[in-house]
């Protein structure tokens, strides 16, 4: 029989994240959203408490959590602020390829400093011409002596303005299309690396996002992750590990939207009674609660499968896609429950809709997720 109860250990991890989200993150969420401010002091506190390097093994100074436990934490953090949580998961996303294909020497060199003090990393895959089609990647890595020379541009890179280290995907042999994609670790201090201005975003405004340009950046061969041409597979394996936490992030946003709507419905009166006593609102709340619970359970299941060593491609795509669509729908209904107030910036729910929107787009747009889901599904019938 499946067991949906958390262990006491998991409950205490969740409680830590919950307390941090509600006392450290949520009180600053509206202000950071309005001012598009990157609250470094909050991320530093998260680092101190072990809430930043979630997937970094303890031997490198991280928290070394499995995917399920990461998801428990990410959901709680996102309840406090989706944007701040994006900074955390974008950082973990950048660590994943080093953990997957880095040599012991590379892990020691790149990951030890990340566990030792507050530093952010960024995952640079997406390019202006498209993020979901690595085969057409235009960033090139030309062989030169005992190393490579990188040139090209990446865009929409979360944490780029603050990161001290980038994991960059570049093509070493464009004629091979996606089979020529190779991954490199590039320090921010490398000559020829230019980070653009912060992007003005619709939501997740407490996280920062920018383009990165590489002008003939020299990268030693010792900083290549895995073999030449192994980058596409590495990117896909990375995303298999990091897609599920997006489901958790979306679930946190959805739960916040439901909580706001339900509490408001008990206080707000129309036609002489609280709107929670009108069936129109009850039906909304019931639908929202179903979406939140389904999103959480799909996320939990995908994380549980992956922790048990399964690939979980189908399940993690379903979790990410369903939870992000659910978050958008639940935030939308929360605004509708608030009526005109919900549309006002003074109230917290419009931010949730803007934050939920991104979860349908990043780490594989939901259209791509559906292609993956259909492909995995049809395999079972072929």
């Amino acid at each position, binding site marked *: 029989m499946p067991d949906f109860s958390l262990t006491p250990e998991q409950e*205490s*991890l969740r409680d*830590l994240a919950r307390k*941090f989200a509600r006392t450290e993150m949520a009180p600053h969420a509206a202000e950071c959203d309005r001012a598009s401010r990157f609250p470094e002091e909050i991320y530093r506190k998260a680092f101190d408490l072990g809430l930043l390097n979630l997937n970094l093994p303890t031997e490198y100074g991280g*928290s070394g959590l499995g995917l399920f436990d990461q998801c428990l934490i990410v959901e709680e953090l996102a309840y406090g602020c989706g944007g701040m949580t994006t900074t955390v998961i974008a950082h973990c996303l950048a660590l994943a390829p080093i953990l997957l294909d880095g040599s012991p020497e590379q892990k020691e060199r790149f990951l030890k400093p990340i566990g030792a003090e507050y530093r952010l990393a960024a995952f640079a895959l997406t390019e202006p011409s498209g993020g979901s089609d690595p085969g057409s990647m235009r960033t090139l890595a030309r062989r030169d002596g005992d190393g490579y020379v990188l040139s090209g541009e990446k865009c929409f890179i979360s944490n780029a303005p603050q990161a001290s280290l980038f994991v960059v995907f570049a093509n070493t042999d464009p004629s091979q299309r996606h089979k020529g994609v190779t991954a490199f670790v590039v320090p921010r201090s490398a000559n020829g690396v230019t980070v653009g201005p912060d992007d003005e975003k619709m939501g997740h405004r407490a996280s920062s996002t920018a383009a990165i340009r590489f002008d003939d950046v020299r990268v030693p061969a010792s900083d290549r992750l895995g073999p030449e041409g192994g980058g596409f597979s590495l990117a896909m394996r990375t995303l298999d590990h990091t897609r599920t936490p997006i489901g958790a992030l979306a679930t946190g946003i959805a739960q916040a939207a439901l909580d706001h709507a339900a509490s408001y419905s008990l206080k707000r009166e129309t036609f002489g009674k609280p709107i929670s006593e009108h069936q129109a609102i009850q039906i909304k709340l019931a639908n929202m609660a179903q979406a939140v619970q389904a999103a959480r359970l799909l996320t939990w299941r995908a994380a549980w499968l992956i922790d048990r060593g399964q690939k979980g491609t189908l399940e993690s795509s379903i979790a990410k896609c369903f939870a992000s669509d659910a978050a958008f729908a639940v935030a939308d209904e929360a605004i509708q429950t608030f009526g005109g107030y919900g549309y006002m910036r003074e109230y917290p729910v419009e931010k949730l809709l803007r934050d939920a929107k991104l979860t349908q787009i990043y780490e594989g747009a939901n259209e791509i997720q559906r292609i993956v889901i259909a492909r995995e599904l049809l395999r079972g019938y072929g």
Partner: protein
Amino acid sequence: MEIVVCVKPVPDAETRLRTAADGSTLDIEAVKFVLTGYDESAVEQALLLKEANPGSKVHVVSAGPPPRTEEVLRASLALGCDLATWVEMPPGVAPDPVSAARALARAVAAVPHELVLCGKNAGDDEAGVVAGALAELLGVPDYSAVLDLRWDAAASRLRFQRSTEAGVEKWEAPLPCVVALQQAWNDPRTAKLPAILKSRRLPIAKVPPEAAIPATGTTRPTKFELPPPRTGAKLIEFKTPEEAAQKLVKVLKEDAKVFP
């Protein structure tokens, strides 16, 4: 210094409390038990003393039923306490203050203890009995409502302040003694994630309660009631202050009958 801290599992203030069907106990099915303000201050004070006096050890002790008592002990270990002892009561049995003090005194007496710290009172029943009773049973003096405790090694004296209605008193005292801490004056730390994980694997010494103590204690609550819902609020709508004043006077005279 050998420091012992006594803590009590208390319902989380964010939990919605309900009375059980019998009316004389709380429905604890969905209640989360946590360390609360006074005890958090006591643990924090113990850790500050340990940090300031190298070689010190902090031993946390609690008396109560599973699973709540184990949880507050593990929470204390995650914060940095070195050792834990659990006087294990039967499931569902929470000791009354005097029984708790007797159980704690027996456990404390069995381990090295120069300084015993407690919260001034528990965050739930606010009885404030345990620290005094514990000191009496251990045969040492006790000081309550204490802030800002320091160990003056040169003089072999504790130096501390007591918050009283008349102001703040400055004290010094020799060891051993029991000190009951005021709440949250020292900004208790938050346990870090790796420490939380590690605390789950640390040993907790279990001791049985003394057979002679009735586990339910010598006192027991006879009835719990939720406060009645508040009614009778009246909102006065007005356009000018004069109108507001007139309407308020009318309400005070005719409805509330405060004035004839």
